[in-house]
Every structure is written in C-alpha cells, then in structure tokens.
C-alpha cells in the first residue's frame, strides 16, 4: 500500500514542481563526512607508505615503514611489539569483566527488586564522565600516601607503580567507567524474554543455573554478541587510562600502542607521521580482524 501511495504522490508533486533534489538534503552531511572523515582516512592510509614530518611534502617510501616496524631491530619494532602486546593484554583482561559484571547486574535488576531504577541510574552514572575526570578521581583512591585504600586498611601498596597492581587498577577503573551501556542493553534484552519459558522450565523442575544457561543466555545471544564486539573495539582504543593513571609505567609495562602512535606523530621533536600512521594502520587492521573473527565464531555456534 505504501508503494502505491508513494507513486501517486510522486505524480502529484511532479505536476506541482515541488520536489527538490534529494542531494540538497544529503549535501551538508556528505560534505562534512568527506572532508573530515573520508579524505583523512584515505590520506592516513597513504601516509603510512611515506616519510613525513607533518610539514613538508610526504615522500613515498613503499613498504619501508612497515618493514621497519614489523621486522627490523629498531626502536619502532620494540614500540609495536610491546605496545600492541600491552593493548591486547588489556583487552583480554578487561573485556570479560566488562561483559560479565554488567550481565550480573542486569540479572539482579531483572528480579525487579526495590529501587531498581535508582540502582540502574547509579551504575550508569560513571559512563557520563570523561576519562580524564575519572582517572583523577581514581588516582586519589589509589594514591599511595593519602588514598583511602592505604589509609583505611593500613596497607602500604604503591598501586599504580607496581605490577600486577598497575594493570589491576586500570582494569578496575575501566570496568567502573564503562559498564553502564552494556548493563542497559542486557536489561532490555532480559526484559524481552517471555515469562512462559521460565514457567515451563519450573514445571520441569529446572534449577536457576540451568534456566540461566538454557533459556536466558540463548535468548540474549544477539545482544551478547553485539556488546562483546563493541566492547572489544572500544577497549582496543585504550589510551587515557595508562596515560594519566600509570603514565605507561612501571618501566613501560602499561605503555599501549595508542600512546606510541600519539608520541611519534605529535610528541616533542620531529614528527614521524609516516611511522605513526603505519602503526595506526596495523592497530586498525588488528581491530578489524579481531571483530570479524568474533562475529564469525559467535555466529557459527548454532
């Protein structure tokens, strides 16, 4: 029916000459998209194959940057291997928590306890704050001299300056900061599961755990898949936490790849935009491969 009516009003409007070209409506976004996203993206991939200092004309060097980063014995090779390893380590530790913690919260909230709305609002709250504000607040908590963790419990731990605590503090902060969105998604998904499923399972005498594994999890599979992929992508872009909380330390053990990318291109001294671009292309490829593998693995389970 919609099809028919569309045709008829198109005829009407043709007669009255009131149709403007669709391009007029698309133009503002397309222009901004092209200049500030698409051209930079293509250009960014191109300069990964050049030597560039951000000022003079980029000089095409073929695969030199990639050879230098991936295979030579240079400082950039060290930056990539350690930076990428630390990034992946962070993803491996943080993603499970960033999925399981909000999932458990959503399950608890789904029992519809008192003040559910209040709890929901509270757990979501930190995700409205910037990473710099969040790190400052937590840097007090972990402060070795005046932080409540040490003063309250009489501990004497240098939290952000020793491993494995440096990573643990980063992960704790990240979980605190980011779980709100996933929690809301799981809540909405759980809410959509028909109650009869559980009632039928009750009649069969299924335990809570069985019901969770056989009814709840399969019913929210789509949302789980979606959040696992988006959370992984988000955590791959880790930058602010180690930069401001641990300053990449102790001994560079929390220096992530984004910090090297930023330093090489915009740090003090001559800009190495070509090398830096090549690193970000490698990081980008890693992110895309990982999300595709995840999509593939999680899709094919059925």
């Amino acid at each position, binding site marked *: 029916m919609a099809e028919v009516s569309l045709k008829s009003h198109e005829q009407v409007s043709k007669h009255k000459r009131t149709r403007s070209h669709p391009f007029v409506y698309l133009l503002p976004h397309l222009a901004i998209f092209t200049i500030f996203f698409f051209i930079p*993206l293509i250009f960014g991939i191109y300069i990964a194959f050049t030597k560039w200092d951000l000022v003079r004309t980029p000089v095409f060097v073929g695969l030199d940057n990639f050879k230098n980063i991936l295979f030579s014995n240079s400082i950039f090779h060290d930056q990539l291997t350690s930076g990428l390893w630390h990034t992946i380590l962070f993803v491996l530790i943080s993603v499970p928590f960033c999925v399981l913690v909000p999932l458990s919260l959503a399950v608890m909230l789904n029992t519809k306890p008192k003040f559910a709305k209040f709890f929901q609002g509270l757990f979501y709250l930190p995700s409205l704050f910037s990473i710099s504000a969040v790190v400052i607040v937590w840097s007090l908590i972990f402060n070795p001299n005046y932080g409540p963790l040490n003063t309250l419990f009489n501990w004497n731990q240098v939290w952000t300056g020793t491993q494995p605590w440096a990573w643990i503090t980063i992960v704790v902060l990240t979980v605190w900061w980011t779980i709100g969105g996933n929690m809301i998604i799981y809540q909405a998904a759980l809410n959509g599961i028909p109650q009869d499923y559980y009632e039928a399972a009750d009649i069969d005498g299924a335990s809570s755990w069985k019901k969770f594994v056989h009814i709840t999890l399969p019913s929210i599979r789509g949302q789980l898949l*979606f959040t696992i992929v988006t959370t992984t992508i988000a955590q791959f872009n880790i930058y602010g936490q180690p930069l401001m909380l641990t300053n990449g330390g102790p001994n560079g053990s929390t220096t992530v790849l984004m910090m090297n990318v930023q330093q090489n291109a915009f740090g003090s001294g001559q800009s190495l935009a070509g090398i830096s671009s090549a690193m970000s292309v490698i990081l980008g490829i890693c992110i895309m491969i990982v999300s595709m593998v995840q999509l593939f693995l999680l899709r094919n389970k059925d």
Partner: protein
Amino acid sequence: MKNKKQGASQWLSFIFLILLSIIWIMPLLYGVMSSFKSNIEMQSVGFKFLPINWILTNYSDLLQNTANTPVFRWFLNSIVISGGSTILVLIVTSLSAFAFSRLRFKGRNVLFIFLLATMMFPPVMNIIPLYKIMTLLGWANTPWAMIFPAATGAFNIFLVRQFMDNIPLAYDEAARIDGASDWQIFRIIILPLIKPVLFVVALFTFTGSWNDFLWPSIVFSDINKMPITPGLKLLQGMYVADIPTLMAGAIIAIIPTFILYLVAQKYFLQSMSLSVGVKG
C-alpha cells in the same frame, strides 16, 4: 512455592545491589568530599571520609587562576564546543535522515550502507591527516576543530532514519495533496514528530563532545583555547601535590553532564534500548 523462591532471589539481589552500589558510588563521593578538604588536612589526617573543616577555597582558587590552568575558561570553551557540535549534528543528521527515509533517489541504500560501513574504521587511522587538514584550514585551536568532526558519524543518521521510518507515509501524502513541498513536509510534519529521537541524539552528542579526550589533546596546544577534558590532563601535572584542588577540577568538569543526566535520565537510558532494538 514459586513466589517464595522468586521473593528470595529478589531479596538476595537487593542486598547485593545495595553493597555494589555503595562500592560504586564511593570513589566519586570520596573525590567530592576531598575537594572540600584543605591540602594540609588531606596530607596530615589518616582516613577520614568527611572533611573536618569544609572549605570552598579549592574551587574559588581554581576558578580564579587564569595563568597556567584557566579552568573557568576551559569550561566555557567546552560549552561552546559541545553546544556547537550538538547544533551542527542535529541539523545535518535530520536533513540526511529525511532524505534516506522519505526521498527516493538512485543508490539510496548503497550510499546508506557505505556510510555505516565506514564506521568500522577505528578513529586512530584518520587522526594524523585530520590534524593536518585543521592546521591548513587554520582551525587548530578553534572550536571548529571539534565541531565539524563531530558531525561526520553515520550512526545518528541511522537512529533518526529508523525513527522516521515509523512515521506513516500517509502524513506526507496528505500534505503533498495539499501542495506541500519536500521542505514543508520536513519542516512542518516530520521535524516536530522526531523531537524525541533528536533529543536523544543531542544528549549523546553533547556528552560525547564534552568527554572527548584524544582528539582535543592533539589539536589544541593553546592553553586558553582548549576544552576542559584535555585541560584536566594539564591540571593533573600542575597540582600533583595538591590533591583537593585537583579533585575540585574534576568535579567541575563532570557537573554539566551530571546535571544533564539528572534532568534527562529517562532519555539516556531509553536511547540505549533504541540502539538495542535496532541491533538485537
């Protein structure tokens, strides 16, 4: 029997949620409390949750200091940047979504899918050339450097289009028979009806822009022009030895998004389910 069991799990959840929410709010509350302590108190007394002497000088000193860390200035810059980004995003998003939802043209779906697919590329890959473009345009250290990139995303168009698609075509049709043009249909019929989703887009654009960290810390080198989120990094370096003042800075930075959340919590939470409905 069943109700009893349900009641038990409800109580258990309730107790867990209370414990967890106390843990969740503590870091923030402790930060807020510390911002009202004097630095001497902070450093001399052991653990104390509430300030012994409540003082406001951390805040007033911070707002008056305009030399190294002009926090008040940063705050105003952030308002301009986030406000500007929100306005631009609303304009380009609603126009573009209208074309994708209501106007028929060749390659409409291909273009739409292409736009969505480009979102796959992580932002790291275009930051260096984007910086170059901004310096060429003379926009580094100006709000434009953040306002325009904010409006490149396709996800907002996706959300708004989705919402528009649910508005019956019969509305447009009736207006068209009365001789309304595309523009009039957009302006008089569609725009008022999509206000709820535009409100959600506005909230997320504002907070997203307010909280952006990596890009502004690259494109703003002038201390008086930068927004507050990268500014806090400088503040952290400047007030290493004065934790209460540092806390005051962080609290000032989170106040606007906190207030927005208090006022429009419903919309924030609703928008999350909006994107689920789409993806689930």
